[in-house]
């Protein structure tokens, strides 16, 4: 069984966080693309068509919820691509509504999650 390399897009404005996620995923043999805000993220997503997007919610310019909404409306691929939303808060109404309304989505509270658990979650979704 040959294992295809999965592509993951990390959209996060805090460069140290983005780097931590990217390098951890690369270490685990994923192909990683990066973007620093929602606008860049949307462009990257449409150009690279990753298998999964890890998306921070609080970002300057275009935030994560806005980017997800736009992506879900863009096309069939955008509507169905799994998205993990990153937040610093426990899920609020806006996040829950976004998850319910907008395709396959998950959220995780950054400070509650260890990097190995994030990796595990990513593998689980991509299975």
């Amino acid at each position, binding site marked *: 069984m040959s294992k295809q390399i999965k592509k993951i897009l990390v959209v996060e404005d805090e460069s*140290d966080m983005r780097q931590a*996620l990217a390098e*951890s995923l690369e*270490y685990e043999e994923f192909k990683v693309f990066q973007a620093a805000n929602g606008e860049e993220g949307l462009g990257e997503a449409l150009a690279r068509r990753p298998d999964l997007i890890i998306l921070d919610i*609080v970002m300057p310019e275009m935030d994560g919820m806005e980017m997800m909404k736009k992506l879900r409306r863009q096309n069939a691929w955008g509507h169905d691509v799994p998205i993990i939303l990153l937040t*610093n808060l426990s899920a*609020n109404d806006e996040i829950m509504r976004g998850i319910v309304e907008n395709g396959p989505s998950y959220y995780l509270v950054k400070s509650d999650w260890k990097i190995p658990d994030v990796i595990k979650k990513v593998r689980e979704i991509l299975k």
Partner: protein
Amino acid sequence: MSFIPAAGIEEYQDIIENANDLIQSVDENGRFLYVNKKWRDVLGYTDEETRRMAFPDIVHQNHLQACFALFAELKKGKSLDNVRTQFVAKNGRVIDVDGNISVRMKDGNFLSTWGIFRDVTERRKVENKLQEEQQFSQALIDSLPSIFYVFDGVTSRMLRWNKNMEYIFGYSNEETAKMSPLDFFDEKDRETTKEAIRQVLTKRKITVEARIRTKDGRTIPHFFSAVHSRIAGKDYIVGLGIDITDFRKQEEELARANAVLKIRDEQIAKEHELNRAKSEFVSLASHQLKTPLTIIKWYADMLNAGYADNVLKKQQEYIGKIYSNTERMIELVDSLLNVSRLELGVFAVKKESVDLKNKIEAILFNFEPKIKEKNLKLLQSYSNDNFIISADLKMIQIIFENMIFNAIKYTPDGGTINVKMRKKENEILIEIADTGIGIPENQQSKIFTKFFRADNASSYKADGTGLGLYIVKTIVEKMDGKIWFESAENKGATFYVAIPIES
């Protein structure tokens, strides 16, 4: 005496006999001495018959009593004008007559009367009909629930009005007849009414709202409509006034209800805004506090998981991240402690005499390596004033360190920072201008909010507590000073601080 042409007696007899009026002569007993042809034609008696008749035979019995009284007067030698009475013809027909009766006397003795009457039966009928019509229309206007009036367009004399007018205003008909239309209005609305009357004469038709004033001083809002009518060459103003008190009350009630609703809407909007601000605060605070902690945690996770086991450089890099974010966390905790002290009011204030110019120069000196590193141009201008104020040195330090640090941090390499200071009455005005990234217009109102960072600021420099300007503003206001700014995105920002000399 009028001129009477000379004529023979026969001629006069002929005139009398053939006159178009009923002419009769009566003796002292009321018997007819003579009646002319017209008289006989109208009443239907022959000459023969009249010789045996007296005036009571032809006077309608309703008028007999009055006629006997008149006859008594006549016998005293008094002629009568405008005698109005009714005769009855032989066939029973009633004839209305108007006339004069003159008396002929000789040596103080009564001889006869001469009466000349005109048959006014037809005219009387028309008059009665007219009177009926008038009563009918009066009943009509009296039945109106509003004020009805007619006045002369030229003299403004009140001509007609309805019972309701009497009832509403409380003036008697005699009083009303002597008043002018304006007298019925409240003083405050007289000018409006005067103008309306002036207009109705040219425009033919107008409406106006005005308060009337009753005889006992009450004012009642009314809606008036009036038309200008020209009847037989005369100008009349005819109109109606309707009481709009209830209508006004409803309007007022509606306005009151709307005002209450508006207040409730505003309260709801305020609550929403407060809730929104609260959740925004929680979101901002957790973002600022948790970001460095998460970064520390994640790089420790990566080291633990062995991701950097084979690369020493990576290990050093990750430990460096942990270190710098721990520093960031310490800075944040320090700021938070300052915020708590300020908010709890336990910030120890020790006033001393501070030379603001020296202090700012010292702070700028400390920042010199950073300014050089970014190749920034630093301009300074101070007026020829004494800048010694009484204030807490620690507070002054926090204010200007933060402001100068911001100017340096958010100005790209090669930019300019301009510090100015001057005295203005009993305060010192400090101006710190930069050519940096500026503050987007849609976020300017939030710039002093706790934990808030403008979008372009967090894109430009990820680290930052969002507390600096909040702390600065809180301290400036504690010192009874003021802080404000002017800025446009990508065009830099100028912050102004005014500090009272004796704070």
